[in-house]
């Protein structure tokens, strides 16, 4: 197995597990077959959604995963969590190989890693009350029930900035930001070690985005969480991340400390991505335009 993914020195040899690393991903591949044909489904091609990706995440840190639409971020996130079966490669969680584990073998590990999704509208069951939605993982894993469950859920709601009286309401009665809080409460219910957040603020209004970003930061500190934060907005990614990995066409093209990737990008694609980010400062925007288009 070749190890050409991680480039910075502090990651070291990923063949031997180091306890400070929560997650080690090596040469991960996820290809989707492209099928054609009327009578026989012939596999004519493959979408190389994740095409040989290696990285690791230390306990308590946030790895930002940035890239344009279709670059493979969501597929990578889901493959790491074994929500999609990898085509090949290795995913080690606390040193233990989880790639290709059966559903049953994965089950106890599910508590340890949770996902937060982009669309707070689509990811919550509209027919269930908030209390049920947040309490479901606790009930399914047999952690709590009855009055103890209700208490636990109310505590979770308070932790994400919702009120106890929200317990009996339905998701449609909440704003986008509040729904994202519900999704986060559900994700932290089982006290996971790793949270993979796939575009958790992309669908939210600017004024709500900052609230959720700050909430995630508070929870990380209180609960010693490790995050993989997926987004296409490199400004948000830089704000939340310790390290950033830039994805392009299924590969990680650059990886390093957040400020270094943004201030001194080495990869041509990263540079192109950064140059396209609008600067919310009219004077700077003007001088940048003059530099590009001498009149």
């Amino acid at each position, binding site marked *: 197995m070749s190890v050409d993914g991680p480039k910075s020195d502090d990651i070291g040899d990923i063949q031997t597990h180091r306890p400070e690393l929560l997650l080690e991903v090596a040469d991960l591949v996820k290809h989707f077959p492209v099928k054609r044909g009327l009578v026989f489904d012939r596999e004519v091609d493959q979408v190389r959604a994740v095409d040989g990706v290696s990285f690791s995440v230390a306990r308590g840190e946030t790895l930002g995963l940035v890239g344009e639409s279709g670059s493979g971020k969501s597929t990578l996130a889901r493959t790491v969590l074994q929500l999609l079966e990898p085509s090949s490669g290795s995913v080690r969680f606390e040193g233990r190989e989880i790639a290709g584990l059966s559903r049953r073998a994965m089950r106890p590990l599910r508590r340890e890693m949770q996902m937060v999704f982009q669309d707070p509208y689509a990811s919550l069951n509209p027919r269930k009350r908030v209390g049920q939605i947040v309490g479901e993982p606790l009930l399914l894993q047999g952690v709590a029930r009855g009055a103890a469950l209700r208490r636990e859920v109310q505590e979770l709601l308070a932790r994400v900035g919702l009120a106890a009286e929200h317990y009996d309401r339905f998701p449609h009665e909440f704003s986008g930001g509040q729904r994202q809080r519900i999704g986060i409460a559900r994700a932290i219910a089982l006290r996971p070690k790793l949270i993979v957040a796939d575009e958790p603020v992309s669908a939210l*209004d*600017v*004024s709500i985005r900052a609230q959720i970003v700050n909430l995630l930061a508070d929870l990380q500190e209180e609960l010693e969480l490790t995050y993989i934060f997926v987004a*296409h907005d*490199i*400004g948000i990614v*830089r704000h939340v991340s310790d390290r950033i990995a830039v994805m392009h066409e299924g590969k990680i093209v650059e990886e390093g400390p957040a400020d270094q990737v943004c201030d001194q990008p080495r990869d041509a694609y990263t540079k192109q991505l950064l*140059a396209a980010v*609008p600067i919310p400062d*009219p004077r700077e925007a003007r001088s940048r335009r003059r530099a590009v288009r001498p009149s």
Partner: protein
Amino acid sequence: MTEPLLCVRDLRVGFVTETGRVQAADGVSFDVAPGEVLAIVGESGSGKSVTAQTIIGLTRSPNSRIAGSVRLRGAELIDAGDDELRKVRGEQIGMVFQDPMTSFNPVYRVGRQIVEAVRAHRRDIGNSEAREIAVEMLDSVGIPDPAQRIDDYPHEFSGGMRQRAMIAMALALEPELLIADEPTTALDVTVQAQILALLERLNRERGLATILITHDLGVVAEVADRVLVMYAGRVVEQGTLDEIFYDPQHPYTWGLLGSLTRIDRDRPERLPQISGAPPSLQSLPQGCPFRPRCPHEFDRCPELPGLDARLAEAPAHLDRCWLEPEEKRELRQVEGQIGLEAPK
């Protein structure tokens, strides 16, 4: 000063719904001059789209209540007949929406749709000439190989190409005003940069006036000349681009500017935020609609502030906040930056 192309005065748009009346736009006024880019910013539900759609009559319905005045080169559009409005749409005002997939019919080729749009307005133009115009327009918005790609179906275009084709269709009849409602929100930043450069070129070369609706202040900084900030159906601040960014007068604007993440600056420990959520239009607080979220609220705020010029040196810079300008300049400084301190 250039004669305004579009004059919107005291525009009010309400909707009668099962649960009560929604005042989606409440007393909105602004001008747009030829070649000017006016940006409308604000969070979702603040009335940006309703305002833009009402200009071209798209909110007319049995349960909408529309009042005020919209004049295009002096001609009133608010009570114009449907036929007249249809002519204005397309010929004088082009429109681009957020999702270009909804604007093209998926079963017809892109070129045919542009040709039909052209011919619907210009009976004097034949098919082949209309096709030439379509190729030329696709070329001018940067579609590679336009003579070939014109026969593609919409789904054969990428998202960015569809959005550019949409702009091409909106511009084929050489309108004087383009209304672009979140035209780049669904696009990647590299494609967004191309679309913004295209819009900027059209403004410069053709004197195209644009109303650009966006929630992205980065986009605003790149292309706008003037900015309108909307909150809960009302304009809370309006001014030139530099006035809004460097001397913002309304606490909501401070909050928007403060919560931006910037890749060209050191990142703050914590992202400054606006607390709470926008009010429901059906149960607005009395007085200033920003009161429940405003850390600077004081005893005058239960009375609605007018949209007034409060700075002697900037008579066209308007805002709706009772605080004194000197107070504002002091209060908006949060750790050396413009921002909003979260209320305790």
